[in-house]
């Protein structure tokens, strides 16, 4: 299954590395203070931050996982690009961004501090810092193992070199460098995957050909178009390949998980914080959302075609199998497709696209980690207060730089732990990601209900998180062979698939978190004065009106309407 690379493929990779490092080198002289380094000086144009917004989301695990998911579950994977992204993105842009950006908070945990109190911030900051390190370690491990198996590169060398390149450019140019490179990475990913999608579709005879081919390989009892539908067969869990029903998709993924991820994950939201104005910040998620909706064409459709190829011996296409259970490893789908269709030249471009997706995800994690560490952990709990603002700023710039190095080294360490104890790392990541749903509940209540108190938010956040973890401990997906998938506390309920388990965990955590926070807000005392809440709570803040002098489609609300209409049309098209 090895892929042979020619000199031209390697040359393309090297040129890409030179540009990536060059941007960091070029930006280093602008990094004079902590604000420039950690917040990009709040100077990014909307389109730059918008493409970075979506690029940070487009990490290696996302690209590899979603393509594999296309081969496994078919078009239903597109739920993650439509209902699981767009409503959340629009809500963030229109309703939440004015408070985030207007509050001048430098991070999501800091917003919690402004709106609630120190302990709520601390809890969120620490969980978030651990989660980013885990996430970047796991994706680094996944990438290095892929490169070792498919390209024959040395695992350690690949891991260190890719990590050190990310370190070099984020260390030199901070968040600005991460954002600029994410824009480049976005274009590389899109252009690098374009020939693959085109050739794969052409090979099966276009969309019409794909329809007939996929119908022939769709297993009983699914309908012939089950692999090309999204909502159509979600009436019952047994009628669609993903094994989920519409309620779980709509509420679990669409309302809770998606809003939790897109509206509160600092890795993503930080890109909008870096925008040059409040209007630009509101446009950032929407500009990112536009290409997001079309990515299934590049990522999921080739995955579905891989399913056709696997069932056609004449094509000579197969995925490597897991030696322990003989099942295909779906994460390899994208790279095996690259090998199948791309000759040297564009092949180098495709591999570079995978490397780029890895780097954008990792740089996103590192640049979010260093900000949260510097402002929310170091500045709040470790360093003594001084009165010299200038010296402080220089000090925090250095701390930010050290945190960048530490973040990368910790990620490398966690990649090595993942290669030894992969299950444990996946498990920990699942557990830590359960903070998103309760976090959304708490931030949402804080922004739209002025009565919400700090004590209530803290307990609500903790309660939602604990309930989600307990839910994971008490339920398991059908056919689970390890306790890492759930059921480590007992066995109360079995879900048909792991995804359903995740959707329900999110729904339950969100509900508990909301009820606890609302309930306790009535019985605890509001410690914040009304004046402190101005700009943070909807009813106490002057409402946003768009500038009437710019054309409607350039206003945040106009853009939101465009994104919303495209979302609805696409949803109906692939119903």
């Amino acid at each position, binding site marked *: 299954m090895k892929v042979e690379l020619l000199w031209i493929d390697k040359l393309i990779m090297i040129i890409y590395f030179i540009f990536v490092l060059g941007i960091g080198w070029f930006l280093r002289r602008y990094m004079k203070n902590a604000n420039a380094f950690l917040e990009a000086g709040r100077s990014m144009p909307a389109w730059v931050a918008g493409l970075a917004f979506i690029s940070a989301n487009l990490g290696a695990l996302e690209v590899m996982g979603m393509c594999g998911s296309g081969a496994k579950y078919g078009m239903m994977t597109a739920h993650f690009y439509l209902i699981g992204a767009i409503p959340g993105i629009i809500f963030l842009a229109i309703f939440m961004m004015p408070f985030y950006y207007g509050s001048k908070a430098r991070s999501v945990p800091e917003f919690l501090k402004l709106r609630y109190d120190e302990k709520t911030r601390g809890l969120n900051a620490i969980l978030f810092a651990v989660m980013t390190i885990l996430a970047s370690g796991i994706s680094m491990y996944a990438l290095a193992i892929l490169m070792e198996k498919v390209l024959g590169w040395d695992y350690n060398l690949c891991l260190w070199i890719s990590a050190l390149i990310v370190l070099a450019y984020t260390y030199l140019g901070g968040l600005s460098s991460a954002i600029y490179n994410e824009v480049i990475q976005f274009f590389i990913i899109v252009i690098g995957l374009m020939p693959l999608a085109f050739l794969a579709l052409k090979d099966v005879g276009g969309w019409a050909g794909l329809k007939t081919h996929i119908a022939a390989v769709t297993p009983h009892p699914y309908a012939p178009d089950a692999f090309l539908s999204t909502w159509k067969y979600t009436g019952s869990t047994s009628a669609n390949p993903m094994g989920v029903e519409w309620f779980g998709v709509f509420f679990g993924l669409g309302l809770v998980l998606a809003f939790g991820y897109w509206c509160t994950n600092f890795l993503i939201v930080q890109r909008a914080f870096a925008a040059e104005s409040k209007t630009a910040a509101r446009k950032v998620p929407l500009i990112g959302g536009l290409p997001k909706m079309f990515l299934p064409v590049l990522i999921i459709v080739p995955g579905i075609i891989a399913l056709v190829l696997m069932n056609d011996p004449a094509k000579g296409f197969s995925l490597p199998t897991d030696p322990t259970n003989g099942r295909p490893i779906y994460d390899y789908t994208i790279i095996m497709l690259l090998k199948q269709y791309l000759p*040297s030249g564009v092949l180098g471009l495709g591999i570079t696209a995978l490397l780029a997706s890895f780097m954008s995800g990792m740089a996103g994690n590192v640049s979010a980690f260093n900000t949260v560490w510097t402002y929310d952990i170091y500045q709040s709990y470790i360093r003594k207060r001084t009165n010299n603002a200038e010296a402080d700023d220089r000090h925090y710039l250095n701390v930010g730089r050290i945190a960048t190095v530490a973040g990368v080294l910790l990620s490398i360490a966690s990649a090595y732990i993942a290669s030894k104890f992969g299950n444990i790392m996946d498990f920990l990541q699942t557990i830590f990601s359960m903070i998103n749903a309760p976090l959304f509940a708490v931030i949402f209540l804080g922004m739209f209900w002025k009565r919400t108190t700090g004590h209530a938010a803290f307990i609500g956040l903790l309660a939602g998180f604990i309930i989600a973890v307990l839910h994971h401990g008490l339920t398991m997906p059908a056919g689970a062979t390890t306790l890492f998938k759930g059921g480590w506390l007992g066995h109360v309920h079995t879900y048909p698939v792991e995804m359903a388990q995740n959707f329900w965990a999110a729904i339950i955590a969100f509900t508990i978190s909301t009820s606890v926070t609302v309930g306790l807000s009535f019985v605890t005392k509001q410690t914040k004065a009304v004046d402190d809440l101005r700009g943070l709570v909807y009813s106490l803040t002057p409402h946003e009106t768009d500038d009437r002098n710019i054309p409607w489609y350039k206003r945040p609300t106009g853009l939101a309407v465009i994104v919303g209409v495209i979302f609805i049309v696409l949803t109906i098209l692939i119903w």
Partner: protein
Amino acid sequence: MVDIRIPIGLMFSIFGILITLFGLFTIDAGMYQKSLGMNVNIIMGLIMLAFGLIMLWFSRRKKKTNQN
């Protein structure tokens, strides 16, 4: 700070030229059987070159309007 379109434009122009040339030199090579007989290198090379040049042109145009 710096116009991001310049490095994007430069990089894709270089990619475009390299891959187009590589495609021209390998025009008879058997390796295009993989890509269903299409010389995707020339096609993608030209697309990237065009994209790179458009990016560079946009950045120049913006510079001019800023100067005026």
